[in-house]
């Protein structure tokens, strides 16, 4: 049940192998990819700021919660920090279980919690040279110039 913050590209196949278990019949993975746009603006790159120590601690708490709630064998979550290019994997969650229902439910639980609880902040760089911290509602006031007044759209 490992949560890690990575400063170089995430290798999903290697992470999956680390979860391998002959008792496992099901594996579910989620990957968050850097998209080419967000809230209608063309994005060229992303920067993630992470408080690593607290992010890992909170991430491993979430993994343990998933293990308590669902019949899973193993789970892991790896999140990038630093500068990312379009198409890169920003976050990877993998779960193995005997039966598929538990793996699907646990994977969904983990990514939902990770997105709202880990001390991680995303700065987007736009094609027009502008940039801004992505932080949902509240950023309308903080970043009035960006016009982020509509509901925040996230993968």
């Amino acid at each position, binding site marked *: 049940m490992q949560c890690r913050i990575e400063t170089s590209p995430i290798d999903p196949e290697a992470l999956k192998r680390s979860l391998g278990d002959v008792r496992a019949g099901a594996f579910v993975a989620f990957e*968050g990819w850097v998209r080419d746009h967000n809230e209608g603006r063309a994005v060229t790159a992303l920067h993630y*700021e992470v408080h690593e*120590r607290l992010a890992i601690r909170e991430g491993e708490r979430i993994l343990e919660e998933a293990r308590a709630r669902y019949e899973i064998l193993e789970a892991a979550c790896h999140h990038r920090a630093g500068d990312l290019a379009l198409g890169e994997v920003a*976050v990877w969650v993998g779960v193995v279980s005997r039966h598929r229902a538990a793996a699907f439910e646990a994977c969904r639980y983990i990514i939902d919690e990770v*997105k709202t609880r880990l*001390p991680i*902040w995303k700065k987007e760089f736009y094609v027009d040279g502008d940039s801004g911290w992505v*932080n949902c509602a509240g950023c309308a006031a903080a970043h009035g110039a960006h016009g982020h007044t509509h509901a925040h759209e*996230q993968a």
Partner: protein
Amino acid sequence: MKRVAVEYFAVFREQAGTAGEQLDTEAATAGDLFVECARRHGFADPRERCKVAVNDELAPWEVALADGDQVLFFPPVAGG
């Protein structure tokens, strides 16, 4: 009056113009200190959407501050 070490992250760091500062404060709780810092630096995010860690542990806004505490203010998170 107590002295605490405050650290700012992401948009808070940019708005404060610093990653951290030593503050002498009368604030009784982390929440009170946040209000003080938000007013001074012009933080726009409402406290309900922000988080605080005191001495390396996420804490409720009601946590009492002691002299020498290290206080981290986290703006709304956006992982994934």
